[in-house]
């Protein structure tokens, strides 16, 4: 979650509740980029992501009088956006609770790639090309794994929250998370492994 962005701009909840438009604009400015890209990663459709973006703020404005501040403002807002995105996914009849976890589809896991690339410098790990590879790797995941990875590992929801939102058991969330992490780790290990080979040549 980009708490930092919001903290830096220190949006006042009291002012928001009082209907201060400037404060609302500051909230939108600090959070809209995160919400849009999060929705885009979940839905993989720019139009759907834009709908989620707009609806999230409209719902947030409506719900604001009841917001008690138990979580931070941005966490609360991102939860609204996640819910909106999941609602759209369900409308599209994407089955988030498929029973594929219980099948042995993945028993034939590829061998683990054992390249130690974690020590590569950050500027290489997060170069524009690397970021493209990260995105492409996530896109190879089936929806059921991608959404769990998005919510837990990128959005930082707890296992319990992820399970509740997706109507899954915590065990199913952990199983999917493991499979998503292994697949992504293997993708990145192959990619960064090539970097290491090039460097040593």
């Amino acid at each position, binding site marked *: 979650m*980009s708490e930092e962005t919001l903290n830096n701009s220190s949006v006042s909840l009291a002012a928001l509740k009082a209907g201060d*438009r*400037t404060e*609302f*604009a*500051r909230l*939108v*400015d600090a959070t*809209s*980029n*995160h919400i*849009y*890209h999060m929705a885009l990663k979940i839905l993989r459709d*720019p139009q759907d992501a*834009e709908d989620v*973006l*707009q609806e999230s*703020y*409209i719902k947030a*404005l409506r719900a604001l009088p009841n917001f008690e501040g138990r979580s931070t403002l941005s966490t609360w807002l991102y939860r609204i956006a996640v819910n909106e995105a999941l609602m759209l996914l369900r409308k599209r009849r994407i089955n988030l609770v498929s029973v594929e976890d219980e099948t042995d589809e993945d028993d034939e*896991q*590829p*061998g*683990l*790639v*054992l*390249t*130690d*690339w*974690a*020590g590569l410098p950050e500027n290489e*790990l*997060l170069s*524009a090309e*690397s*970021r493209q590879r*990260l995105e492409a790797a*996530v896109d190879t995941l089936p929806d059921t794994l991608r959404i769990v*990875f998005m919510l*837990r*590992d*990128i959005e*930082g929801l707890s*296992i319990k929250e992820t399970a509740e939102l997706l109507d899954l058991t915590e065990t199913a969330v*952990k199983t999917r*998370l*493991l499979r998503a*992490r*292994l697949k*992504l*780790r293997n993708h*990145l*290990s192959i990619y960064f*492994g090539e970097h290491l080979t090039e460097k040593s040549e």
Partner: protein
Amino acid sequence: MTEKCTCKGLTSSISDYLDGELPPELCAELEQHMSECENCSIVFNTMYKTIDLYRQPDPNNPLPDDIKSRLYHRLHLEDYLVKKT
């Protein structure tokens, strides 16, 4: 290098460990194992790094202008589109 890690059964523990979901006694066992097993140590480090990379926001990926404009209009915040909010 691609090979079957002989400790494959531990990948699930490594993932749980990263989530803080592994019982304390198993944590100690896993930490001890990773200090002796290079393969598991690599799996842990690279899995941790994989998640870490995905969590880093991309500073070069702003909200597209047309989407921002439509959002501000929908929220009746047009006045704030030109001004720095």
